[in-house]
């Protein structure tokens, strides 16, 4: 993420097209080409027509041959969704799966406003995007023109940054700078709003140069150059060596910073167990003996008990969000020392006071700590803690009713996981199915888990899977979706088949908004306002067939589970599987809002610790 940040200052080579005359639209496309953008997600319209035309002409004159397949393909593939929100999530799925900047291009007004949700979603999850929006001509801005929307105002409130390009001579530098902004520091979405006359302006291509942004770049440089000094390292290890039960709390920053290997090496050296946030899944191999998998509201019981028991927390690219530290004072209540590393100074101590901190690139910080500890022969003695963690994992393992006559979602994910083995890219909608997927899949490497973590946007799963499949044409990509979530962007089923993507779409159908029902059971006496879909008429299998899925089936019986899933995953093209699951299946464990981890409910099949299990007011009977 960090390396190319200050690229423009070091590039001295003259661009082969420097001095050529180009339209603004051609300038945009040339910057995209120079950035190595191979796929664009977007929808055309009046105010962006020049750019789409320039993409068309670029592809017509720059065909390239694919090394492996020897097939001629377009260098800048255009992927057209059913709705701009789909394009935004495709770009986000592409970015999440590849680590590269995802690019979306939309028209003004409704095209841009349909893009607001993915932009906000990407901001909240720190995903690098560049979104180019057409805008009405500069002379018409502010006149309530046809398809005008105040994009800079709207997006300014939810993007990392928005540029409204009013001076055409700044266009080239602005688009280039947008990429730098999107991927540098804490990554995020950057929107470039380009009036139509700017797209049509005649410009001279420079081939280099970015906007100055003196404040941003100075702050970025300070953060990127920050190093852990000997005193910092010594203080860190002094505290660590005093701890008996140290724990790593790893967040999405581990993935954004490409720090998974450095984390692995740190754990190999010092033996701290690792609990991962929803965004951090894949940052540490969940099948490792020291992996505690997910923590938080729906974390594993053993991860949450380990947080309860630990006396030292090392937070890595994690921000004590309310799904993890719902009650900050009660989070890790026995921790005598909290250390935090983040790229964003605003996250240090935002929720919980910390005793040791470092603002800087996570990979380098971990490498530095590992090297320091090794050189000084510092090795915490954690045998007792490791035994405790192993016992927590054994005694409070994830479990469910394995004799159930109804198909249970946990069994479905486990069955898929036996085939995927942590090597498939998995995307999700939002709700119970998302949590079951997080809990029951193995995550062995970064960028295989694509989920809307902070915003929790239903409708994310299907378009994100499309983007991921473009990032990894040869990988198995699975969308684990909910019957309600998939409806939100169901138009994208057709996008899957239009582009012949071999995505495997799974709908865990519990006939409604299961997660909402779970909360209604717990906190609203079972009044299912607006969350029941038993009167809905959609036949998902027919819908998938209508959109051209060559494999589409409904699974209703437990004894069919294994063979149908094997058949489904083996199908070479787009495949759609609807699974009718027990509508009463709940997500366990659960740390309710306002509760501490000690008060977590674990359901009937995961043993809780005595104290919590004995609680008379446990609401678990309501599931």
């Amino acid at each position, binding site marked *: 993420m960090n390396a190319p940040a200050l690229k423009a200052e070091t590039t001295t080579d003259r661009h082969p097209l420097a001095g050529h005359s180009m339209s603004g639209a051609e300038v945009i496309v040339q910057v995209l080409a120079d950035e190595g953008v191979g796929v664009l997600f977007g929808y055309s319209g009046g105010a962006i027509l020049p750019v789409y035309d320039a993409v068309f002409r670029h592809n017509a004159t720059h065909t390239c041959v694919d090394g492996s397949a020897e097939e001629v393909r377009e260098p800048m593939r255009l992927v057209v969704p059913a709705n701009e929100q789909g394009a935004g999530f495709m770009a986000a799925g592409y970015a999440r799966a590849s680590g590269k900047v995802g690019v979306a291009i939309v028209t003004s007004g409704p095209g841009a406003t349909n893009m607001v949700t993915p932009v906000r979603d990407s901001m909240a999850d720190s995903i690098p995007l560049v979104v180019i929006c057409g805008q009405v001509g500069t002379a018409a801005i502010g006149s309530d023109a046809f398809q005008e929307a105040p994009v*800079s*105002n709207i997006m*300014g*409130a939810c993007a*990392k*940054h*928005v*540029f*409204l390009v*009013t001076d055409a001579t700044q266009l080239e530098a602005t688009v280039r700078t947008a990429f730098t*902004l999107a991927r540098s520091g804490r990554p995020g979405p950057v929107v470039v709003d380009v009036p139509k006359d700017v797209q049509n302006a005649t410009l001279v291509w420079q081939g280099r140069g970015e906007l100055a*942004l*003196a*404040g*941003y770049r100075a*702050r970025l440089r300070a953060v990127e150059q920050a190093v852990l000094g000997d005193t910092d390292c010594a203080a860190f290890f002094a505290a660590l060596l005093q701890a008996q039960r140290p724990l790593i709390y790893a967040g999405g920053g581990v993935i954004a910073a490409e720090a998974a290997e450095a984390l692995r090496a740190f754990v190999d050296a010092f033996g701290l167990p690792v609990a991962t946030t929803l965004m951090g899944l894949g940052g540490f191999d969940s099948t490792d003996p020291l992996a505690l998998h997910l923590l938080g509201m729906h974390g594993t019981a053993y991860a949450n008990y380990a947080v309860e028991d630990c006396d030292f927390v090392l937070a890595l690219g994690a921000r004590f969000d309310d799904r993890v530290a719902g009650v900050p004072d009660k989070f890790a209540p026995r921790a005598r020392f909290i250390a935090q590393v983040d790229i*964003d*100074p*605003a996250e240090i*101590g*935002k929720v919980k006071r910390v005793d040791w901190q470092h603002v800087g690139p996570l990979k380098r910080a971990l490498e530095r700590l590992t090297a320091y500890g090794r050189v000084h022969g510092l090795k915490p003695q954690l045998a007792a803690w490791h035994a405790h963690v192993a016992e927590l994992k054994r005694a409070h393992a994830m479990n469910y009713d394995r004799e159930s006559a109804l198909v249970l979602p946990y069994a479905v994910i486990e069955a898929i996981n036996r085939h995927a083995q942590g090597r498939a890219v998995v995307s999700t909608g939002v709700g119970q199915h998302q949590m079951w997927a997080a809990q029951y899949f193995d995550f062995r490497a970064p960028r295989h888990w694509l989920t809307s973590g902070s915003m929790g946007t239903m409708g994310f799963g299907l378009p994100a899977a499309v983007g991921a499949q473009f990032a990894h044409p040869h990988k198995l990509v699975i969308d684990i979706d909910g019957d309600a979530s998939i409806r939100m962007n169901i138009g994208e089923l057709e996008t899957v088949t239009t582009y012949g993507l071999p995505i495997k779409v799974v709908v865990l159908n519990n006939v409604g908004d299961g997660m909402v029902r779970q909360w209604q059971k717990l906190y609203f006496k079972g009044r299912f306002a607006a969350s029941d879909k038993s009167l809905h008429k959609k036949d998902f299998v027919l819908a998938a067939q209508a959109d051209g899925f060559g494999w589409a089936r409904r699974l209703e019986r437990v004894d069919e589970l294994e063979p149908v899933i094997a058949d489904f995953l083996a199908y070479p093209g787009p495949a759609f599987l609807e699974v009718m699951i027990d509508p009463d299946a709940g997500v366990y464990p659960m740390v309710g809002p306002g509760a501490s981890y000690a008060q977590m409910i674990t359901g009937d099949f995961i043993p809780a610790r005595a104290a919590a299990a004995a609680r008379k007011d446990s609401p678990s009977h309501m599931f």
Partner: protein
Amino acid sequence: MNHTLSILLQNEAGALVRVAGLFAARGYNIDTLTVTATHDPAVSRLTLSLQCDEAALGQILQQTRKLVDVLQVAHPATALAA
């Protein structure tokens, strides 16, 4: 407590809205706001006062520094500049 911040801002489209929007979105109430020109026509100075406690002040400073058009944020009373 009453705090006064001094912000140097690049004169870009929407820059002022983004500063005001950040304060609104994060629930900080601006008591007074003055925008003045500086010797550099591309830069303006915002002087802004608000009521908040120390913890909130730290967050406000850090969050404001994340705005791309912001060149500098200072809290003259504590000289917390960056």
